[in-house]
């Protein structure tokens, strides 16, 4: 057992490759046999990943899901921000400039609309739950933007740590729901071309949610959605503690 652990820990990233590969193989097998290909294999793999993260977090009490289990530490590196961004940028290889230009205006509009709409929805929910402090309402609203905008806004405004935790939780729920929900609603919302993918990325904004949601819908759309989504958090951090807070402060 000790030898096993030594080998696994020393080669953590390699272990992660093997484990993820096996997970994807099982997922594609299930997608083929159980759903006859109606649910995409990668959607099942992502759902399995989230499920594993839940049990990993429950078992260890850590904050990085499966990666807190000693033997699976490499998942943390493989699924971390650096590798994610590297692979996302690689998906842009082969993208046509003309497609980007076509959706340029709609893409920009979607980023601002996405930030503002998510913020308003989050803030309204906070008010409905009885919050009246402008700082708390703004922080929870910012959390509904993304789980990065929430704490950035909260700490800029001096919100309590439990409010910040709440905003992170709201952002995480959003991100997870986008991962799982996107392939289910893709057809209904017309998510089948580069332009709508760019708008989708700008509206949803959560990079991990958009990345996983589009991967499970149609991998060809990933670069377009990811491109706009990466501007979203920046815009959110810009608007949250400033204009959006002033507006909330004026209303409440």
């Amino acid at each position, binding site marked *: 057992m000790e030898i096993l652990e030594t080998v696994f820990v020393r080669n953590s990233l390699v272990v992660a490759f093997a484990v*993820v590969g096996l997970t*994807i193989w099982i997922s594609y097998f299930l997608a083929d046999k159980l759903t006859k290909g109606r649910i995409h294999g990668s959607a099942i793999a992502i759902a399995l990943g989230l499920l594993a993260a839940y049990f990993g977090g429950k078992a260890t009490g850590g904050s990085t899901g499966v990666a807190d289990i000693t033997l699976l530490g490499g998942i943390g590196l493989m699924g971390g921000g650096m590798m994610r961004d590297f692979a996302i940028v*690689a998906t*842009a290889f082969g*993208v046509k400039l003309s497609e980007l230009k076509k959706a340029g205006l709609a893409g920009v509009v979607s980023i601002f*609309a996405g930030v503002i709409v*998510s913020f308003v929805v989050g803030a309204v929910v906070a008010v409905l739950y009885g919050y009246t402090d402008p700082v708390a309402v703004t922080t929870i609203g910012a959390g509904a933007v993304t789980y990065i905008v929430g704490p950035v806004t909260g700490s800029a405004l001096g919100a309590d740590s439990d409010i910040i935790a709440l905003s992170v939780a709201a952002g*995480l729920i959003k991100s997870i729901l986008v991962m799982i929900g996107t392939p289910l609603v893709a057809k209904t919302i*017309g998510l089948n071309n580069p332009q709508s993918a760019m708008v989708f990325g700008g509206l949803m904004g959560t990079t991990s949610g958009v990345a996983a949601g589009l991967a499970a819908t149609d991998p060809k759309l990933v*670069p377009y959605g990811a491109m706009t989504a990466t501007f979203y958090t920046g815009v959110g951090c810009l608007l949250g503690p400033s204009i959006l807070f002033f507006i909330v402060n004026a209303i409440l």
Partner: protein
Amino acid sequence: MIVYGVALLSACLILGMLIGELLGVALGVQANVGGVGIAMLFLVLASNSDRFKALVDGASGTGIQFWSAMYIPIVVAMAARQNVVAAFEGGMLAVVAGVAAVIVSFALVPVISKIGNSDTSSQESQ
């Protein structure tokens, strides 16, 4: 050489991230503003330009394609390291706020997609 493509990809990412950080500082925001998106633009420009042909054609290109293909496995690993427990322990307020934000945003996709785009030529039969 495969590594040329990988190096080009890395250079695009680092350059994009640097610009994103600088934008963040310039705007007074504690975040990277669009670093990944800017890096993607660089890669699109490089792969569409003649000057970088040696870095994106043939074996060099497969160095980039490999990482592009590793995207879904990396996303699966990313899903497996999310703080799912914290998400559900935030209570009903967090769930309601998150779910409502997603539903409204989903509904806006077809609305905003119409901006500056009247043709729906790319609607493929499913």
